[in-house]
């Protein structure tokens, strides 16, 4: 039975999540790169959105959500085969068309997050091929494991809106492709600073707002769960922003705008898996812990691992998503005003850690294979000369700023 109130909210939430990528994430990334690559960052995000949409319709939705094995959904719902117009999605009161669209916006933003790892040096054809294969081989199966009734769902793993499915997959795959691709020319000493911090702030703000659809929409219904998810999401974002601000202020004497909004995204990624299970204080704790962990992770990836995950996808999304997934086992208990667990906290912690490790391992291994295949078929990197000239001109024949 379809509920019009639930459906109205989910139509809205779907729109909000698409807005996260177009143009939120695109602007967030475009502001962080050099002025000669601003269009290429925007282009990569919107092209991935188009490609992922068609693949989602063709087979990826079915791999994620159709009946199948514990590891892989079947192909029974390819091209939405057999899905009736007025059919409610199982366990919800919204039409399957809306569930399909809502989940599609997740399948769009997740490969788009990985753009941050390879910007400013990758071939455009490699972006398209890598993202397509990645959606089918990493995203869709993992979505099935966690949300489509697969093996992690059966074990009771908690991931409300995609700490594992979205942020761990994207973060781990990002650092893997960045490592295989190699750093940008001049990394780490001669990289140019973000060309437009104001654009980064505008993009981050759109992500923040869109995230209400992401997390509160993951209730798949209008009502109390959606309301509390929105509340904890906002508290975590604000807390993590301030956490980042304070760390920078103490460490460098000045708090930066780029730093604050990076904290925002860290807080949002961290609260994502927990958002449907925790209470307000849990949101604040997610923000505090997530902000501090992700800040430390930026230095870990760039300065200790020395990998040019250019826009810090692993540090902000991977570490944030993993931290939140593990925190969920603690913050969901009634003592923190959470909704309670169906097993002991220790058992839940075990399942959460198992989930993070398994999803991270699959993301890394599959990404290595996908990158090799992509390299063999279309090549990975542009020439050094093209990289120095910028991808806007060399890949797209356009200029970002005709001043």
């Amino acid at each position, binding site marked *: 039975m379809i509920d019009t109130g639930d459906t109205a909210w989910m139509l809205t939430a779907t729109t909000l999540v698409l807005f996260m990528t177009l143009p939120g994430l695109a602007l967030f990334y475009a502001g962080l790169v050099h002025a000669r690559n601003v269009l290429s960052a925007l282009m990569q995000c919107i092209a991935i959105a188009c490609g992922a949409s068609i693949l989602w319709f063709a087979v990826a939705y079915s791999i994620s959500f159709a009946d199948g094995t514990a590891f892989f959904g079947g192909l029974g719902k390819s091209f939405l085969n057999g899905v009736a117009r007025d059919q409610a999605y199982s366990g919800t009161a919204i039409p399957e068309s809306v569930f399909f669209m809502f989940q599609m916006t997740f399948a769009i933003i997740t490969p788009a997050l990985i753009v941050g790892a390879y910007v400013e040096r990758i071939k455009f054809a490699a972006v398209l091929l890598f993202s397509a294969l990645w959606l089918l081989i990493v995203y869709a199966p993992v979505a099935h494991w966690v949300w489509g009734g697969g093996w992690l769902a059966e074990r009771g793993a908690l991931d409300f809106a995609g700490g594992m499915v979205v942020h761990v997959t994207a973060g781990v795959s990002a650092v893997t492709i960045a490592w295989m691709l190699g750093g940008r020319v001049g990394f780490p000493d001669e*990289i140019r600073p*973000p060309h437009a911090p104001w654009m980064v702030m505008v993009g981050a703000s759109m992500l923040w707002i869109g995230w209400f659809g992401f997390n509160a929409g993951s209730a798949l219904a209008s009502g109390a769960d959606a309301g509390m998810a929105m509340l904890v999401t906002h508290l975590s974002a604000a807390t993590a922003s301030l956490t980042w601000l304070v760390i920078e202020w103490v460490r460098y004497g000045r708090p*930066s705008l*780029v730093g604050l909004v990076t904290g925002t995204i860290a807080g949002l990624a961290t609260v994502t898996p927990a958002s449907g299970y925790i209470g307000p204080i849990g949101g604040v704790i997610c923000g505090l812990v997530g902000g501090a962990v992700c*800040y430390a992770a930026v230095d870990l990836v760039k*300065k200790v691992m020395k990998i040019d995950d250019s826009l810090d996808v692993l540090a902000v999304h991977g570490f944030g998503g993993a931290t939140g997934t593990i925190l969920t086992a603690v913050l969901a208990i009634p003592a923190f005003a959470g909704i309670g667990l169906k097993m002991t906290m220790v058992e839940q912690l075990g399942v959460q850690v198992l989930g993070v490790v398994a999803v991270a391992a699959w993301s890394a291994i599959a990404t290595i294979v996908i990158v090799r295949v992509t390299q063999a078929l279309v090549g990975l990197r542009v020439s050094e000369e093209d990289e120095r000239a910028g991808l806007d001109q060399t890949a797209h024949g356009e200029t970002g700023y005709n001043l």
Partner: protein
Amino acid sequence: MKLVIAIIQPHRLEQVRDALTEIGVHGMTVSDVRGYGRQKGHTEVYRGSEYEVSYLPKNRIDVAVDDSVVDATVEAIANAARSGKIGDGKIFVLDLGSAMRIRTGETDAEAL
């Protein structure tokens, strides 16, 4: 005739313009330029990484003046542009061979 070239902090441009107007120097050419001197640029920190910004934005002013007002011009620019901090810029004075106002064909001192 001399050509006075001043490299100044962009935020001092209006003060320099007012100072020159006050001593009767009307007309200048201003360009946005980038460069560095003793200060050697500066450092910006984004997400924990330090970035060297070697070329800082400056304004370059070109003013052509008669020999009689060169000293006053240089002094006016220097006083208006000076904050006392590193990065205030420099003033160069060059000999000027000739000048012409294109519209009327007037030359040299009459063209200034």
